[in-house]
């Protein structure tokens, strides 16, 4: 009795501690400990090791297998080294523990497999031929219980054990080439054959996965819901009513028609087996098959949770928190708000979630300001479930220019009031304040300092309609366009003249606060300098080498993030040269280092190749910086949007003692020679030139493309962007020449200051 009480106490304490992690704030998870072998071995080495196992087949089959191994080794490593794959973090640890339980009866298989978590909003899991199993955060966020995860892992284990990936590749190759049983098939039938083969594999994985699952100590009692997880993967992790007041404040009230009380119901119909073109069998058939498999299964001594419900829920919560920021960084602002909203209902004081809502609102506002809202807005008519109300609300807010900006700023003003020292909140707040003042030309005096009092005959939130004598308008002498212009002016001024305009009452609570007034005044005075470099302009203009002007940045240190080297032979069927590219990347990195030394520029390289086991932090940093640049470059140049994870980026900048980060790379390209026709003609009429033209015709055109971009991560300014096409084979000395030139320009200080 005493032991069980103690156990309960420990469990309760653990549970409280775990949930406390989310109460006030949240820090995104990163990988910990030493890098696993999968991360430190070069892809080419993995390929060579795997290739040695290919024996005894027909020459053509062996070649196809080798091709598969080559492509898969490199593409899997691309994912693993993207920094989005987590290991030794709570989620990956948990998935590994569940895998241990699932494969208790198959220890040999367990030893061959490595389980990681992939940070993405997609709801999926996949296994590779090499024994890497990835479970996405999107999936973890949606699962109902541990047994469901166990079943999914069992399914993936079968894919690995049965070598489905390589079999599918070989079969697809046969189908594409129309060999064997696929002789005489037309394109349509080839496509169907590929889908059929893929479905067979999925069925096999379900069936054999169930056998593995049933051998484990996991219960089948609540397993079948896993198919609902798959079926409704396109929906948020929950379906809760979106409260209109969530984005309102005591004086800012949206008109009733901005809120969709009756949202589109989620389509719960099961789709029958019209899955001929799909790579997976229909959910219904899979569910039915599994149901018959678990019918009568003995669940005695089995449970939904072997690791523990508390840990499962904790991990699921982490996954859900991760989703919020993933949506934001991928410009999926509305799903970002809705996911944060659902979590805020549970953790109303969580700053991370509040900030995430603010960032998403700011994103929507900036796109709305630039009349580019469709780029970030989901068509609300196509959204199923209760979240539709939010999509509809943002759609309505976008319909009047500036309203989205006001609503976002109102939300941020409240946050600034509550967290005055938060740098990220302040940055977004100032950004929106500036847009309000300069883009919408709104002044402090345009906003009301007391709440709206509705006239007696008007309900709050409904626009007043003053009584007036309706006269026939004078239309004589007016053109159609004059009338339309008048109508437009009338619409724009109508709100103010006739009654409540919610945007004017957005800041009533803060109008009397000195800091708010001062912020307004500061924004009015502020004149933003144009960004140092317009990337598009530089990229295009610098194609013409003659117009390029050298930079003189005067920086002492830069950090190069994940340098790229790609070898492409456009004349070959297999255009991308994986092994040469990897070797080139290693060599390119060394050249960066040696040239920086010669240019007396302090340099650090965050590189994914040749990582050492103790360089987990480096990979984490690289992931954050890659996410940063991906997000930055995802916006159109006219969108002035601060970065949502500025503090994490600043921490990295501080760690490396520089604000300047560089993204650089080289493409080594062989293509058809541009002057082939001319050379042939010339050679025919003037044969002595054959010794010169023949090698050129055989070798093709050789081109080297080198680019470099330097970002000031403190200000988000592009400080340097250079794109260089060199009409020559990629030689070491040519690369050195350009790398040094770029580093020299970074290091050299302008005499003008």
């Amino acid at each position, binding site marked *: 009795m005493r032991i069980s009480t103690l156990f309960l106490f420990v469990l309760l304490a653990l549970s409280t501690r775990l949930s406390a992690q989310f109460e006030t704030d949240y820090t995104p998870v990163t990988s910990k400990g030493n890098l696993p072998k999968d991360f430190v071995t070069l892809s080419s080495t993995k390929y060579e090791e795997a290739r040695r196992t290919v024996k005894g087949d027909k020459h053509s089959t062996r070649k196809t297998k080798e091709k598969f191994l080559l492509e898969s080794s490199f593409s899997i490593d691309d994912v693993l080294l993207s920094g989005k794959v987590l290991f030794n973090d709570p989620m990956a640890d948990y998935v590994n523990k569940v895998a241990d339980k699932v494969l208790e009866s198959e220890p040999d298989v367990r030893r061959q497999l490595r389980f990681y978590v992939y940070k993405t909003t997609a709801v999926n899991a996949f296994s590779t031929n090499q024994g890497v199993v990835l479970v996405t955060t999107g999936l973890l966020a949606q699962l109902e219980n541990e047994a469901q995860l166990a079943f999914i892992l069992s399914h993936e284990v079968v894919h690995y054990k049965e070598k489905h990936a390589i079999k599918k590749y070989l079969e697809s190759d046969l189908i594409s080439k129309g060999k064997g049983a696929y002789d005489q098939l037309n394109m349509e039938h080839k496509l169907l054959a590929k889908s059929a083969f893929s479905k067979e594999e999925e069925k096999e994985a379900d069936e054999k996965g169930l056998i593995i699952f049933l051998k484990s100590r996991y219960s089948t009692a609540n397993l079948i819901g896993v198919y609902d997880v798959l079926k409704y993967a396109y929906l948020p992790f929950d379906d809760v009513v979106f409260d209109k007041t969530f984005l309102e404040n005591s004086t800012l009230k949206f008109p009733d028609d901005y809120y969709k009380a009756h949202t589109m119901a989620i389509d719960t119909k099961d789709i029958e087996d019209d899955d001929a073109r799909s790579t997976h069998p229909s959910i219904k058939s899979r569910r039915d098959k599994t149901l018959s498999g678990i019918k009568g299964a003995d669940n005695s001594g089995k449970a939904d949770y072997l690791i523990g419900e508390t840990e499962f829920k904790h991990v699921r919560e982490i996954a859900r928190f991760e989703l919020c920021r993933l949506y934001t960084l991928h410009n999926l602002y509305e799903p970002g708000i809705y996911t944060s909203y659902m979590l805020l209902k549970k953790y109303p004081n969580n700053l991370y979630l509040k900030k995430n809502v603010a960032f998403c609102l700011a994103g929507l506002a900036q796109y709305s300001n630039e009349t580019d809202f469709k780029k970030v807005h989901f068509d609300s008519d196509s959204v199923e479930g209760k979240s539709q109300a939010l999509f509809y609300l943002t759609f309505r807010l976008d319909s009047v220019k500036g309203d989205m900006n006001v609503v976002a700023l109102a939300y941020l003003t409240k946050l600034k009031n509550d967290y005055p020292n938060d740098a990220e909140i302040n940055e977004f707040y100032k950004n929106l304040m500036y847009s309000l003042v300069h883009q919408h030309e709104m002044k402090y005096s345009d906003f009301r300092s007391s709440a709206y009092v509705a006239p007696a005959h008007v309900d709050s939130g409904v626009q007043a309609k003053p009584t007036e004598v309706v006269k026939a308008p004078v239309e004589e002498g007016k053109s159609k366009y004059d009338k339309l212009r008048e109508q437009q002016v009338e619409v724009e001024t109508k709100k103010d003249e006739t009654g409540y305009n919610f945007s004017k009452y957005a800041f009533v609570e803060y109008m009397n606060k000195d800091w708010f007034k001062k912020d307004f005044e500061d924004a009015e005075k502020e004149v933003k300098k144009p960004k140092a470099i317009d990337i598009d302009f530089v990229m295009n203009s610098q194609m*013409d*080498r*003659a117009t390029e002007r*050298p*930079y*003189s940045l005067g920086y002492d240190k830069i950090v190069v993030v994940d340098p790229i080297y790609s070898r492409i032979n456009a004349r070959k069927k297999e255009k991308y040269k994986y092994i040469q590219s990897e070797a080139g990347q290693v060599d390119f990195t060394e050249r960066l280092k040696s*040239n920086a030394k*010669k*240019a007396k520029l302090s340099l650090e390289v965050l590189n994914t190749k040749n990582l050492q086991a103790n360089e987990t932090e480096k990979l984490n940093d690289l992931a954050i910086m890659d996410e940063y640049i991906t997000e930055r470059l995802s916006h159109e140049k006219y969108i002035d949007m601060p970065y949502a994870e500025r503090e994490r980026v600043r921490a990295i900048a501080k760690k490396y003692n520089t604000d300047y980060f560089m993204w650089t790379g080289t493409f080594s390209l062989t293509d058809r020679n541009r002057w082939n026709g001319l050379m042939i003609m010339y050679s025919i009429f003037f044969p002595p030139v054959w010794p010169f033209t023949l090698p050129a015709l055989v070798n093709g055109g050789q081109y*080297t493309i080198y680019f470099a971009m330097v970002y000031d991560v403190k200000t988000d300014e592009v400080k340097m962007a250079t794109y*260089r*096409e*060199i*009409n*020559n084979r990629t*030689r070491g*000395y*040519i690369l*050195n*020449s*350009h790398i*040094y*030139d770029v580093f*020299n*320009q970074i290091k*050299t200080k*302008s*005499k003008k200051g």
Partner: protein
Amino acid sequence: MKGKLLGILMFLSLCGAAQVPGYQGLKFSVKYDLGFMHPIFEYRRGTLPLLCHNFSVDYVVSRSVSLGIRYGFMFYKQPPNKLAFNNNVGDLDINPADYLGKYQQHQISFIVKRFYKRKGFIAPVGRYITFGAYYQYATDQTILNTTNYSYPNSKFYFQSFKGTAHFGGVILGIGRNFIVANRVIIDFGGEINFPFAVVSKTASLEKRVTYRDVLYNNLMQLYIGVGMLAF
């Protein structure tokens, strides 16, 4: 002398743009080129080319331009000079011991190399075109001991002569170089010279022979060179 050279280099560096990278910061190079000139007139030497030894220094002054000074030296022994005899003699079987023919040429050139920036090259690496001006001084010497030869119908125009020639001219050329071991330059290219000289119509035959030799020897040059990036 060293001070003057440094002064010139400093001046040249100021002429360039603010950002003058060189190759990994190395802007100054020394180079030896072996030039091959076609013996247009000296056909009796067979098809062997005339060899010219060029020593040059180059300095990168901008991202696409380098300036250089080149000294070229050419020396060869002439075969029996047909013009020394009248045209009726035909081929003479002259004992080499009785004949001495020497040709010497010194050339100083100022060369501007413009690298193909449009093709993506940065001085001093890659393809380039050459513009330049040169001054040339050449001597052409023939000494023949005629005592051992008696040809009734032959007439010796002269038994010996020494002619000198002064040429100026313009150089146009193309070439490319590449760098190995981060220091060594391998260079190859070709040039066409446009010589200019003033010779009086009443000048002696010897003088005119010399000018002709110099003119034809220097019309075109192909070269291969090796050099080093110094600093």
